[in-house]
């Protein structure tokens, strides 16, 4: 009885919408493919051209977009509950900034004088993930004083975040312009160029942590009542905080490694979910996950179709389509 019936219905509807968006999005592009044909291609049908476009070009990036959106949304929900602040998001505790700095550093260190990479670009996600993890633990370590308090975590996170951004900017300015624009696209967040190899790494990683996160909803529910109540009802507050932080770092680390620093999803999706299904995390996390997945898929769809032949990073549109809807939601519910 963690999730009540009406919330369950909404989650199922969102699940269906997610699948529909995935199918529609796969069909849209230079070559238009009808949704039912997309489905038939999934099951081995369609022409060889359709096969190629769907399975080689579009599906990997769409799946990466979906997974990254889900992971960021769940991580944002976890952080908002743990920090008990609606403004908390993966950016605020430095995780995204850490990944960004690591990517720029990677591009700088491993480029030779001709600006070509000396190692495979496949190592970029590893660098991003490492950056995210290192910064997350650094923030946690610096925030520790007989336990970690959410306020210290946020303040130190903001401080470290600013540092990583300064480092990123410095490296970008010192390096050649080509590298700066390469890094900038990554920092904005893009799923362009994703292939099945990426999918087979991110898919199990995100699914494991998204599924695991549904086992910690009880802990999140009591964390959100504040440290004192959480202790009163028998929660081991510090251990739970560490676990929750670890979980969101794993989720965000994976997402930014393959989709870059896609912003705003981690902040917005949990809020939208809260307005749909209320504050109980049993319903909130799955709802946020689907909303996040839909958001990034739609953002990527717009980015790769609306400005052809230009490819605009999905990260531009998560904010561009998300923010107005977000403000509308807040506006609509301002009196209730």
């Amino acid at each position, binding site marked *: *009885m963690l999730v009540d019936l009406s919330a369950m219905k909404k989650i199922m509807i969102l699940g269906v919408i997610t699948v529909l968006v995935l199918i529609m999005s796969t069909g849209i592009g230079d070559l238009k493919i009808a949704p039912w044909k997309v489905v038939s291609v999934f099951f081995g049908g369609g022409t060889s051209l359709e096969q190629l476009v769907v399975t080689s070009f579009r599906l990997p990036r769409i799946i990466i977009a979906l997974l990254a959106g889900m992971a960021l949304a769940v991580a944002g929900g976890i952080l908002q509950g743990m920090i008990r602040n609606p403004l908390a998001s993966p950016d605020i505790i430095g995780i995204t900034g850490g990944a960004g700095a690591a990517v720029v550093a990677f591009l700088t260190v491993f480029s030779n004088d001709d600006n070509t990479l000396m190692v495979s670009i496949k190592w970029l996600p590893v660098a991003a993930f490492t950056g995210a993890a290192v910064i997350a633990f650094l923030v946690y370590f610096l925030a520790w004083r007989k336990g970690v308090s959410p306020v210290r975590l946020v303040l130190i996170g903001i401080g470290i975040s600013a540092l990583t951004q300064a480092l990123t900017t410095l490296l970008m300015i010192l390096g050649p312009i080509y590298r700066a624009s390469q890094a900038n696209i990554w920092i904005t967040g893009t799923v362009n160029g994703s292939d099945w190899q990426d999918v087979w790494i991110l898919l199990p990683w995100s699914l494991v942590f998204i599924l695991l996160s549904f086992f910690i909803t009880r802990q999140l529910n009591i964390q959100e009542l504040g440290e004192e*109540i959480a202790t009163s009802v028998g929660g081991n507050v510090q251990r739970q905080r560490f676990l929750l932080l670890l979980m969101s770092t794993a989720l965000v680390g994976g997402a930014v490694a393959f989709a870059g620093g896609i912003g705003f999803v981690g902040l917005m999706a949990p809020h939208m979910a809260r307005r749909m299904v209320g504050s109980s995390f049993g319903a909130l996390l799955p709802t946020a996950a689907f909303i996040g997945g839909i958001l990034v898929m739609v953002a990527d769809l717009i980015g790769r179709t609306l400005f052809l032949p230009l490819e605009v990073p999905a990260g531009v549109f998560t904010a561009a389509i998300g923010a107005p809807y977000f403000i509308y939601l807040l506006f609509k519910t301002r009196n209730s």
Partner: protein
Amino acid sequence: MSDILQTKDLTLSYGDRTIIDELNIDIPKGEISVFIGGNGCGKSTLLRSIARLLKPKQGSVLLDGEAISRLSTKEVARKMAILPQSPTAPEGLTVLQLVKQGRYPHQTWLKQWSHKDEEIVQDALKATKMEELQHRKVDELSGGQRQRAWIALTLAQDTDIILLDEPTTYLDMTHQIEILDLLFELNEKEKRTIVMVLHDLNLACRYAHNIVAIRDKQIYAQGKPEDVISCELVKNVFDMDCQVSRDPLFGTPLCIPFGKGRCILNAVGETG
């Protein structure tokens, strides 16, 4: 009556400042105990420390004779609940969702929600007269209703001991009485041990079996209100002159402070 909660040479401090110094106290089982004392005397700090929300600098708190620091926090949570001062619920949380969290210490990974949990939650809502309001959002309730919702949460924890830090603060008189009546009934009917901090000395005298007056990092006096409350105690604990009379309805001590104000005694005569 056995003592369900004790402290042994308990010393509490914030940084270098000692708040409570080597304090020993026995809290009787099945009674209502109320901590009183002036602002900043450490009565809330003491309560929080008994509830393991604050680690002692020295000494220990014993629950049923066992040091609380040796018990797992879940074990303690099955025996003792605490309602801190003015807790806040997250936006949009319903009363029912809030109260359900009280079942946390009774649940495990495998057994997440049982019929018994449901029953106890509904009983808690009934006892606090929150049944009708269970689907309302906590942040939309009035002060009195909200406090009843939080008390329902501690009841759902189904513990023998309930600690409350100033449960009547910010409530008007009607709701203060309502909350204290509720706690009194819980004690009468279910023999729950209640320990709380109250500001209103007269209400403390009416509801408490056991008064604990705190001054100078120590217990100044402890006992039945009718035995311990005197002009001298009020003078020493609150630094206030008063006359101690009797509550005309209950017969419990009634403290009438001296001071300034409109005196119309002569105009209306002695009988009032």
